[in-house]
Every structure is written in structure tokens, then in C-alpha cells.
């Protein structure tokens, strides 16, 4: 697979002026500003192949948005190189943005005063999309995102979910080969989230669009992304397929046991009791050290077990591990 995005040792430094509190601090800041260099992005390297759906995740302030801004050419890196479809977005921003679709969950690129359809017409002219392609794209988008109910409504009257669908359609009109989605499901109800996830899957499968998704909604990640790039403090801390990431970061399982009646000696040498609530006990164990079957059989020999269940760790546990350790 050919790489559509290649990022090499990307660094972005900011100069911020330190502000001190109080009147004296304010005066001092005015006269002798204390400058400090902060590395927002600190040596990020990754490459993304055509047709991947990559979750780009990390806690707030980890450098996600800064990276996206550099990838789209609206920020210049302090050092390091970026190639999007073989072109540097810094050198030739206009031809790179033609290949990109960008959606911000918190912003809209639609024109507030215009009807949704008019915003699309304007974008058709800005991107110089020929009539036929435009009609085709629009009818597909209208179908999948169910735009027909509100395509003639002014953008300012749309609900958040409708606006988001409109925004995604707007980003896809010029048939970009790469789609950046920055928290596309933020603040949406379950129905709208579902529609958007379906759409992302569909364009990825049918058109081979590469999708880079930043989100805090781990359901998005779980349902969509085959690969995760996790950043923290401006560095890539994990990069790999989601399944192996979970396995690596959260190798433990949970065994939940419900007893028939209280019992005194609950301990097991290879399992840790992490929670106890009445007759319910949560054991945490590492499956490399003891298998679930063995633990169950050993525990059931001494405990009066009523019911039990084994829980797999999910992406949330894995991510929490990452944030904790770095």
C-alpha cells in the first residue's frame, strides 16, 4: 500500500509569554515579558496508507489539533517534514487542500445565512467541481446522510446533528481522497452518531477514502478504526492495530463473581480483588499468568459461587493505561 501521508520527525514549538498574577505581575509582563518555548509537537513520525481509517487520539492538549493543522498546511512546522500525496502542504497549500476534506465538530464551514444547498453550490464554484460530478456526489451524499429534509433550510436554523451532516457533506463534495475528522460526533445524539459512523465506513469502503479521525469518543474509535495512533505530550506513544494495542496495554481480565452467601477467605494468589460490593466480587487477573478457566475452577472449589462472568478490557481501559503511564 502506498503511503498518502508521511510525517517525519515533526516538531512544532510555540513561544508563549509567561503571565504572572496580580497587578505587579501584569506590569512586569508588560515591561519585561518572559518568553518561554513550548514544544506542542515533539518529534512525531508516522505514515498512513491509502484507504486506512486511523484514529488519532490523545488527551486534551496532546498536540492532536496542531498536527492536523500542520497536515493541512495552515501551520508551518518548526522542523520535520510532511508529505500529503507526495506534496508538502506548506509549499503548496492550495493544491493540497483540494485533495482534503476537513470537518471540525466544533466549527462549521457552512455559510450561516445561506440555505444548506446554497452553501453547497458556493463550494461547487470554489472547488470548480464540474456539474456532473457535483450532481453525482450530491445525490449520494443526500441519500446516505439524509439531507433532503433540510437541504433548503438556512444553516443557522439547523440542529447540531443536521449541521454536522451538512458539514460532512460539504467536506466530501469535491471528492477528496483524504478526510480529516476532528471530533465529528461531539454533542450528537445516538442516532446521528450512528448515521455518521455508517457514512464514514461507507466512503472508506466504496471510495477508498483515507480517514483520519481525532475523537474523545471511544465508541467511534472502536467501531471505525483499524489502527490507532496515540499521542501524549507531543509524542507518539502507541501506534498499531487496535486489537494488539488493547492486548498490549491492558493484558488483564476481570472476573466478576457473585456468591450465594458471605464467605471469609476470598483471596487467590494470582488474582487481585479490586472491588467488593455485598456478595459481588471483582477479581483482576493477567491472562498470561493464569487462564480464566483455571481461575474459575480454583475459586469455585472454595467459594459458594452463584454466578460469574469474565470481562474483556475495552479500548477505554487501554487508553486510560496509556495516559496514566506517560
Amino acid at each position, binding site marked *: 500500500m502506498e503511503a498518502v501521508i508521511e510525517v517525519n520527525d515533526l516538531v512544532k514549538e510555540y513561544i508563549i509569554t509567561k503571565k504572572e498574577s496580580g497587578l505587579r505581575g501584569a506590569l512586569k509582563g508588560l515591561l519585561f515579558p518572559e518568553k518561554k518555548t513550548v514544544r506542542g509537537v515533539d518529534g512525531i513520525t508516522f505514515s498512513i496508507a491509502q484507504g486506512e481509517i486511523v484514529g488519532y487520539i490523545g488527551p486534551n492538549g496532546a498536540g492532536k489539533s*496542531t498536527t492536523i493543522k500542520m497536515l493541512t498546511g*495552515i*501551520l508551518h512546522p518548526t522542523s520535520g517534514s510532511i508529505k500529503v500525496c507526495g506534496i508538502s502542504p506548506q509549499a503548496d497549500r492550495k493544491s493540497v*487542500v483540494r485533495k482534503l476534506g*476537513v470537518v471540525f465538530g466544533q*466549527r462549521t*464551514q457552512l455559510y450561516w445565512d*445561506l440555505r444548506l444547498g446554497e452553501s453547497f453550490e458556493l463550494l461547487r464554484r470554489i472547488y*470548480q467541481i464540474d456539474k456532473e460530478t457535483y450532481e453525482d456526489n450530491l445525490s449520494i451524499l443526500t441519500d446516505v446522510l439524509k439531507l433532503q429534509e433540510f437541504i433548503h433550510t438556512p444553516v443557522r436554523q439547523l440542529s447540531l446533528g443536521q449541521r454536522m451532516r451538512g458539514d460532512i457533506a460539504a467536506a466530501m463534495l469535491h471528492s477528496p481522497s483524504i478526510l480529516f475528522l476532528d471530533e465529528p460526533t461531539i454533542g450528537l445524539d445516538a442516532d446521528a452518531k450512528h448515521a455518521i459512523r455508517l457514512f464514514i465506513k461507507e466512503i472508506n469502503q466504496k471510495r477508498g477514502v483515507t480517514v483520519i479521525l481525532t475523537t474523545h469518543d471511544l465508541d467511534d474509535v472502536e467501531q471505525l478504526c483499524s489502527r490507532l495512533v496515540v499521542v501524549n505530550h507531543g509524542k507518539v506513544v502507541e501506534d498499531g492495530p487496535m486489537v494488539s494495542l488493547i492486548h498490549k496495554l491492558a493484558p488483564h481480565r476481570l472476573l466478576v463473581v457473585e456468591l450465594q452467601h458471605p464467605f471469609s477467605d476470598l483471596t487467590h494468589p494470582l488474582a487481585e480483588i479490586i472491588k467488593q460490593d455485598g456478595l459481588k466480587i471483582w477479581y483482576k487477573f493477567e491472562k498470561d499468568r493464569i487462564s480464566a478457566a483455571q481461575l474459575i475452577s480454583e475459586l469455585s472449589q472454595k467459594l459458594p459461587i452463584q454466578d460469574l462472568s469474565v470481562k474483556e478490557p475495552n479500548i477505554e481501559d487501554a487508553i486510560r493505561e496509556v495516559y496514566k503511564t506517560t
Partner: protein
Amino acid sequence: MLQAYWYMTKMRLLTSLAYRFEVFASVGTNLILMLASVFLWKAAYGGGTQQINALSLQDLTTYTVLSIMLASVFVCGVQDTIYYKIREGQIVTDFYRPIPLLACYLADDLGGMLSAMINKVIPLFVFAALFFGVPWPASLAGFLLFIPSCLLSYAILWLLSALIGLIAFWVMELGNMGMVKDSIVRVLSGSIVPLWFFPESVQTVSKFLPFQYTYQTPLGIYIGNIGIQDALAAMGVQFIWVALLFILLAACWKRTKSKTLIQGG
């Protein structure tokens, strides 16, 4: 590309025409301003017919009426547009488009201008004609020169507004800069009181500033206070200002853009 600009202009035109309340308010205030100014001139002339600076009361009435109509046509939203877009972070989405930003804002303002011609100038003209008689131009030649001179005036005003708007990229907080600029323009452009009534020194200084070429020049041409010869010379100066401001804006825009891109604003 041109299609895109035209579409923006058209959409602004249509949306502005839809805002009826704004039109009533604007026509109302401008009408009051117009009546007040004209009555002020009447009082200043003391009802007599003596001439000040070779300007008749009729000339001044025409001057004032047209000045107010021009003020409602010269739509320079660009400084506010940039300011709000930066405050709300919306400017980012504009950078994602393969189209020059400032040209988009100009297309938008032009749409506002076209709509103002329809829904503000026509009612103001009708009212002015009812109250003070039709404000005819001094001569046909004057009228024919008035039109291109107005276009140059608008170019100067728009470029000034865009330059002020760019400041927002650097300081984030534009504050009253826009208002200060607007006030300076209003006084020094002769839009309220023609500069011919100002002391000699002010007039001399103002010759070297762009402001008087925004209102006084086209209006002077219209009422015939500036002769054909002088009119052509004044339009030459207007053109020089447009060129200068354009070069200045282009240079500032380039620096602003690279600063924004490099430092992230």
C-alpha cells in the same frame, strides 16, 4: 473562480435584501441625519442668500444628501468580518479553501453594496427629492465623472478597512480601532462638513492624506465645485492612493499570513 465570487456577491445581495428591519432602521437613521444636516446648513446660511466659499445652499444640500447616500452604499464589512472570524476561530475554515480570503470578503461587501443601492439609496433619494427637490448634478459631465470617482473612493475605503482588519491578526483584540478609523474618515473625508470650510492648514495637510479623496472628491465633482480639469487631477490622486494602499495591503497580508501560519496566531 470568478463564478465563486459572483455567487458570493449574489448571495449577499439576496440575504441583505431579505433583512427588512435592518433596511427600515438604516433608512430611518439616515433620513434623520439628512434632515438635521440640511437644516443645520439652512441655519448657518441664516435664510439669506449670501454665498460662502462660492457654495450655494442648494449645492450644500445636494452635497449632504448625496454624502449620506454614499455612506450607506460604501459597505466595508471587511474589518468586522476579519475581526469576528478571528475571535471565533472561524478563520481556520476559510484557510482550508483553495481561494484567496480577502477576495471573498470583497465579493461579500460588493453584494452588500448592490443591495444597499436598491433598498437604501432609492428610498433615501425619494425622500430627499420630496423634502428638498431632486438633487441634480451640476452638469452631465460632472455626473459622468462622479461615477468612476465613486468607484475609486470605494476602493480606497475598502482597502483602509481591510488594513485595519489585518491588525486583528496581530493583536487579537481590535477594540475601538475600527471606530477610531471610521471617525477619522468621517471627519477628514468631508462627508459631514466639506473640508473647504476647514482652516487652510487642515486643508493643506489633508491633501496628503487619502481621506478627502473618499467623499469630498466625488461629491465636489457632482455639485460642480470641482471643475472638469481639477476632477481629472483629483481622480488621478485617487488612483495613486488605490495603488499605494493595494501594494501596502498585499505586503501586509503576505506578512500576516506567514506569521499566522508559522506562529499559529
